[in-house]
């Protein structure tokens, strides 16, 4: 049995996941992008409560590969934005000091 369920569900704020949910199943969120909009991607502990949580929030289940692709799409956008954020005459070190290191790729659990 797989350890995690993957899915997309919009974080609606207060009550979207509760402290009790966090105790009942593993939950980790990622920033994703579906080609049009940013989406909230979730890795959820593969138990009954975790599965019901995703369903109750009108989530769409994804495979791990699909979830990873959504996260990578977001990473690509962020990395491109970093590449394009330049100041004339700025060295590479100065750029890192100004806006931080280039974002990396996030791997879903």
């Amino acid at each position, binding site marked *: 049995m797989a350890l995690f369920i993957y899915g997309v569900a919009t974080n609606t704020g207060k009550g979207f996941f509760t402290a009790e*949910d966090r105790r009942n199943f593993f939950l980790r969120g990622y920033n994703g992008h579906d080609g049009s909009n940013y989406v909230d991607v979730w890795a959820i502990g593969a138990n009954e409560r975790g599965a019901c949580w995703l369903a109750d929030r009108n989530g769409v289940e994804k495979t791990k590969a699909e979830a990873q692709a959504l996260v990578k799409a977001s990473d690509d956008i962020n990395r491109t934005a970093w590449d394009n954020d330049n100041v004339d005459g700025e060295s590479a070190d100065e750029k890192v000091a100004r*806006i931080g290191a280039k974002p990396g790729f996030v791997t879903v659990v």
Partner: protein
Amino acid sequence: MSTYQGLKGLKIKYLSANTSDDRAKEGEVFYNSTSGKVASHIAVAAVSSGTPMTTGRNAMGTTTSTGSSAFAAGGNPNDTEHYNGNGWSEGTAINTDRRYLAGCGTLTAGLIFGGNKAPLPTKAGDTEEYDGSSWTESGDLNTARQFMSRAGTQTAALAAGGTAGPGQVNNSEEYNGTSWTEGDNLNTTRSYFSGCGTQTAGLCVAGATPGGNSALVEEYDGTSWSEQGNVNTARQIVAAAGPQTAAVSAGGKISSTVLSTAIEEYDGSAHSTNPATLTTGRNAAGGSGDSSNMVIFGGGSQPGQTTHTEEFNTSIFTRTAGAWSSGGALPSGAQELFGSGIQTAALCGGGEGVAASPPNAAEDNVFEYDGSSWTAGGSIPVRSNKCSGCGTQTATIIGGKGTDPYSGASGATRSYDGSSWTAEPSLGTARYNTGLAGTTTAAVAAYGRFPPSPFTNSVTTEEWDGSSWTAGNNANNSSTISESAGGSQTAAIYASLNPGAKSETYDGTNWTNISPTVGNNGMTGSGTQTDFIIADGNGAFRYNGTVWATSPDISTARGSAANSNVAATGLISGGVDKSTATEEFTDEVLSSTAKTIDFD
């Protein structure tokens, strides 16, 4: 006829409600006049989740002492972790790197012995003593071995069985604080097992014989081993702890694909399976404590080694672990924003938002949180990013910021009265990402960065008295950039998380280095000098005034978010990458529920 007064020496109390919290006592009977029922608090066994270890490991050396103070040493990584009942912190690496070892004693008087060391698969006889801060070599086992049973203390330990050389052995050895001498032989040769108790009242549990899994249990009285009541489920490498007459065995390996979640208790003659089970099946986990409070940690899971920590408690109190939950979403996502206030009355604003143009330009938005949702507050007159704040929702001060568009630093200071901002005298040293702690009438600002490029880390300290900044003593560590600050002007904490940097506390005059953490730069912190919590989704840590330990983490990884002022009810909002998410922390709770006594 026996009476309650005769048995307990007490009359039954007449109360309007059930006793709770520190008034609740196990076995005390009382009459609840509201419900019209007689009730009492009855201890029940339960497993609760604990804070994960820093590093997954199995077959490690552990204490035998208590469930609230333990160490885990070796077991693939050669480092040591300390457990304080709430979380794990870094200890000192053992001298001889090894796995499949055993341990006993306490956190400050511990012992590890045996195992498997380089060049693999060399069986180890190495013994090391621990005082809570350093490991010291001591006399080797006479028979180098791995996967043995353990019991006892640093000055009176017991090692039995295990795998030595090519095969399993049945001999035991006793340690006197200096050297090992031969004890009696086990009745059944075996390995892959565990033990508990003392040198003169020891217990070894289950394991594997050359014929397969074993359910056998033996007791040691300091002279000889005797067969006792078997465990109900034969399995290998359980986590065993407790005295000989109140021992617990948890988890274990039933087959290559089946790990046990079972918990069995031993009363000195027989094993019974407790209805409570581990959440995570595992073998070769660490175990410390006894049947009233045992902590089970790490171990081999599927896949790999787990960091999971669980506590088995028999108590009238039920422990509910701390956790982060989702809060109301920010109306507009941002990172590098300031935060102040508490979970139910917070303030955040500025930063670099989704609406910023050009990218990473500053924002002037301010939002107020009521514990459920964010609403717009009075905008900052000047767009402000990388600024920090302290105080309350209706009395906040922010100081230092990046220039806009961001290329340098400013010492701009402003105060907020719940509706509008007032320009105040600037910091003497212009800087951004500085840390502010205190109130609008007594604050401290320290650390941060300032130009020219490539930007210098500031150690300058300035104190705010409500009308002006004055210089304080410099902080100690020039490698630090610490916007994660909390506490007051005279009792502040600055959590530094970038590699090589150090966290410090400030007493209003002097700075003191405190134990480092293993977190990441940009983590968001909430709390005071004696209770400070930081998290970023890739790890979370809590400082109790003495040591950092692991803590429950937020769900979505992001740094540079806004914080609040209380650790136990922490609040994190916004953050990289211009997130709108808010998460709220609910601290661990111990609660008791009285059981009604039915006379029908």
